[in-house]
Structures are given as structure tokens and as C-alpha cells.
């Protein structure tokens, strides 16, 4: 064969093989590259999750009263971590720090973009969620909120609640224990009392009649503690939410802070008494107001209307604080308000961070955490932006 023809043939064959290799090999490796990327993302997520759940951050009490103020300034945080500095047990989170992730916290929160810059997470997005151990809904499956309350009046002195307890995938939970306390007021009178413990039936449904000592109360607050094998969730349900025009209740460490309501009513309000409903289901009388414990809901230029430190409050594991207020304008009347964890330590999913993009290959990690001695599943989603 002519050597020239030989070389031309060889060049053609080698060129075809070279081009094939250039085109095909990257495609063959694409899966591996994607897997490497996914694994890198997983490592980043794991490091981030460990930092969030196992590290206290710096200062160790960055969510509490730093520089003697309960207002929170993000610049205080030098290193991020949610672990409790008072409890060395792993996966115990500090409620003050977790509250600073609540963007509705009137005393300040840690913005998502700022946190990303502290964590050096440029180019990545994340979403942090706290998921309750189970769901509590109305009997028809609708979410319990101010418009869809499980409370209904049978007659003027008889109240009824009915709810459904289900696993997160919707299966009913039978034999869930339901207990709680009722706080209510009518005119100048205020009353409170425990509810008889009961359990859910095979369909996960539970209802109970509550006899009232005051007829047709103006304000009713029912706090329910639902537990499945001693793993509990707390539900606050009410007839009318007075917090929108009286005050918002906040707790920072051992300090209770009342802040301006969303629609302040502009009236003088006295603090008659404060009760604590603990995560263990106990009601403790915390404080009886004095003549000095009053504030104006609207006139005060101050954002924080009233505050008081109660040594040892945090040790009680407070789930909910219940205030019996006395409003003096337009005739004296008692008002019941509860707080502060309406958006956080309840049966709702708490979410912080970005929105998980669909089909982004986001990595999800899950851990079990304790906040105020209550169990939640912490979820972290991380993706490349």
C-alpha cells in the first residue's frame, strides 16, 4: 500500500477517535462530576449543620442580652451556632438564639443574607426548618389558626374543643394524651382552670366539653399539651386574639418584654397577673402586678412598653406566658393574652432562610433537637445558587 495513503488513513482514524473521545468522554464523566458536586454540597451541608446545632457560636449568649440590651443587633454575632451554652448535652438548642431566626421577632432577628456572609456561604443557599414531631389540626384536617379555631360554644357556659392528631404523613395517632389549661375573662372577672386529661380515639380525634364559671366570656385562651409517648407539642388556641391591639409578649433569657402591638388600641393597660405554662404541662403563677406595672398601648414612643426580669424563669422551661391585663379606658375589663412562641415553639413548621429551588439538587440533612426540653426535627437544605 502507498505509504502516503497509509498515513492519511491513520490520521483520519486517529482524528475520528480523538473527536469521539472529546465528545463522548465528558458525557461519560458528567454523572461523576455531578456526583462529586453533590458530595461537596453534602460536605458543606454537614459542616454547616454541625456548626448550627453543636456550636454555641460567639459570644456564647449572642441571642440573649448582650451589651445589657434585649434588642438584637446582628453585628453582635461573631460566630454562628445555635447550641445552648448552659447545657453541655449535644443537640440542645438555645431558645433565645432560635428566636433570633424568627423574622417576626419584634426585638430583632438575624437576617439571612447577613448570616450567609458570617458563614462564608457566598454562592450557596440554605433553608433551616424546625419540624414538630406530629401535626395537630382541626377535625376536618384544616390548619388551626385564628380563623379556624377548634373552639366552639355549646352554650353560654359550655365550651367545646375538637381536634385531630396525625403523623406528619397524615396517618392518625390514637391514644395521644391531651391535657391543658383554660384562661378566660368576662368584664372585670378573670378565671382559669385545668382541663381533664383525655386521649385521641382510633381516628386521632379528640373532643372535650369545658364548663365555664363565667358566662359568655369576652376572651378565652385554651392551651393544650398534646403528647405521644411523652413527646409533646403545645398548641395555643383562642377565641379572640387581643395581642394585636394590646401588646406582644417576648422572653429574652429571664426577662419578659412587652412590645407594641400591630394595631395598638391607645389605652392604659395594667398588668394584673402573669402565669407560665411550662413545656411539662404545669401552670405556675409568676407575678402579680403592682400599681407601677402599667403602660399605654399606643402613646408611648418606646417600642418596648414594659419589661421585668424574673430570676430562674428560663429554668421553668416556659412554653407560653399568659397575661391577665386590665384595660381601663372605656370601662375596666380583663384581657387575656398569651405569647411569645406563636410562630415558633408550637405545632407549626418554623422556616428560616431561602426558598428551596425545585430541581436544584439540594441536599437535605435531618437531626433531632431539643428546645426548651421539647423534641423537634431540624432540617437543613443546602443548594448551589
Amino acid at each position: 500500500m502507498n505509504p502516503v495513503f497509509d498515513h492519511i488513513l491513520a490520521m483520519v482514524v486517529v482524528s475520528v477517535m480523538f473527536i469521539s473521545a472529546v465528545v463522548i468522554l465528558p458525557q461519560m464523566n458528567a454523572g461523576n462530576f455531578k456526583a462529586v458536586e453533590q458530595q461537596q454540597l453534602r460536605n458543606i451541608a454537614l459542616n454547616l449543620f454541625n456548626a448550627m446545632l453543636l456550636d454555641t457560636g460567639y459570644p456564647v449568649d449572642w441571642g440573649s442580652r448582650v451589651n445589657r440590651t434585649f434588642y438584637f443587633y446582628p453585628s453582635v454575632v461573631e460566630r454562628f451556632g445555635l447550641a445552648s451554652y448552659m447545657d453541655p448535652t449535644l443537640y440542645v438548642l438555645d431558645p433565645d438564639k432560635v428566636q433570633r431566626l424568627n423574622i417576626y421577632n419584634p426585638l430583632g432577628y438575624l437576617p439571612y443574607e447577613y448570616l450567609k456572609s458570617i458563614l462564608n456561604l457566598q454562592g450557596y443557599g440554605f433553608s433551616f426548618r424546625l419540624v414538630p414531631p406530629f401535626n395537630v389540626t382541626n377535625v376536618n384536617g384544616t390548619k388551626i389558626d385564628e380563623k379556624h379555631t377548634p373552639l366552639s360554644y355549646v352554650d353560654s357556659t359550655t365550651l367545646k374543643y375538637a381536634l385531630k392528631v396525625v403523623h406528619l404523613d397524615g396517618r392518625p395517632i390514637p391514644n395521644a394524651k391531651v391535657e391543658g389549661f383554660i384562661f378566660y375573662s368576662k368584664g372585670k372577672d378573670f378565671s382559669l382552670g385545668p382541663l381533664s386529661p383525655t386521649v385521641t380515639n382510633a381516628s386521632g380525634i379528640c373532643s372535650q366539653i369545658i364548663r365555664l364559671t363565667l358566662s359568655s366570656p369576652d376572651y378565652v385562651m385554651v392551651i393544650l399539651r398534646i403528647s405521644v409517648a411523652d413527646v409533646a407539642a403545645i398548641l395555643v388556641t383562642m377565641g379572640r386574639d387581643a395581642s394585636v391591639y394590646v401588646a406582644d409578649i417576648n422572653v429574652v433569657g429571664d426577662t419578659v418584654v412587652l412590645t407594641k402591638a400591630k394595631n395598638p388600641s391607645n389605652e392604659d393597660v395594667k398588668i394584673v397577673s402573669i402565669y407560665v405554662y411550662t413545656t411539662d404541662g404545669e401552670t405556675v403563677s409568676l407575678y402579680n402586678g403592682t400599681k407601677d406595672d402599667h403602660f399605654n398601648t399606643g402613646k408611648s414612643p418606646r417600642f418596648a412598653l414594659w419589661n421585668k426580669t424574673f430570676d430562674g424563669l428560663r429554668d421553668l422551661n416556659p412554653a407560653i406566658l399568659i397575661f391577665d391585663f386590665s384595660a381601663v379606658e372605656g370601662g375596666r375589663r380583663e384581657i387575656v393574652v398569651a405569647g411569645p412562641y406563636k410562630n415558633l415553639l408550637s405545632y407549626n413548621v418554623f422556616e428560616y432562610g431561602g426558598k428551596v429551588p425545585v430541581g436544584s439538587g439540594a441536599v437535605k440533612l435531618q437531626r433531632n433537637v431539643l428546645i426548651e426540653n421539647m423534641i423537634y426535627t431540624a432540617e437543613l437544605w443546602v443548594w448551589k445558587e
Partner: protein
Amino acid sequence: MRVVETILASIVIMVTLTFVNSVVIPPYSPRYEATELEKLGYNVLHNLEARGILTRYVYDPDIAKGQSLLRSALMVSLPSDVYFNLTIYRLDEYGGLHMEGQNIFYGDPEAFQNPKLVSTVTYVLASSGDYYDPRILVLQLARR
């Protein structure tokens, strides 16, 4: 002849590259998921113990009742897409292991068929009170 050699050499290189590409262990492997489940399993048992729930139910004198409650506690503590199979062993004075009660199981048995996708956590409780009375908990986890 050189042409044939060149072509053969190119083919050998191509085959080698393809072979290496096919036998290399991809980083994304079910083993990572199993490791993740192990961490979650240990974490859940640890939190249940920290709250006193695990010890209370494992050492319940009414074994069937205790194990039923422990199943409920695990079901609400673990994510809803995680299946589990918990076996509790009691250690006698001669070092022999005896199974306590029944397996505490939730989920689809099929999910536990592939050992690569199942993670196992071994957790030891020393006692429920003053005297040494260990229980060994073997928790198997699989994703739905």
C-alpha cells in the same frame, strides 16, 4: 505496520480510559445515606435518653407496654420517611445476650432487604437506677 500500531495504541488508550471510568467508585453512593441515617439514629436515641423517655420505656416492667410506647416515641421522633427495626437485648450475669420482648418495627420489610441501604446503630443503656443492668439497643434504619 506503523499505522496499525498507532491505531492499536489509540484503541488501547480509549479502552483504558473507558475501563477506568467504569470501575472508579462514584462519590455518590448509598453508603453516604446509610452513614447519614446512622447519625440520625444515634441522635434520636440520645435525645430520647436525655429526656428520660428511652430509659423509662426500655426498663418498663410491662415489656409489651414499654415497647409499644417506645415504638410511638420513635415514630414521632424520626422523620416520617424513615423506617426502623429496634431490637433490645438484655445482658445476663454470664455475659449472655437475651432478646427482650419483640422486635419494635415500623415500615415496609422490603426496605430492610438491601444491607447497603440499611444503617445500624448500637446504643447501650447501663441501668435504670442504682444497680448495673445493661440493655443493648440495636436500631436498624432505612429510608422509604
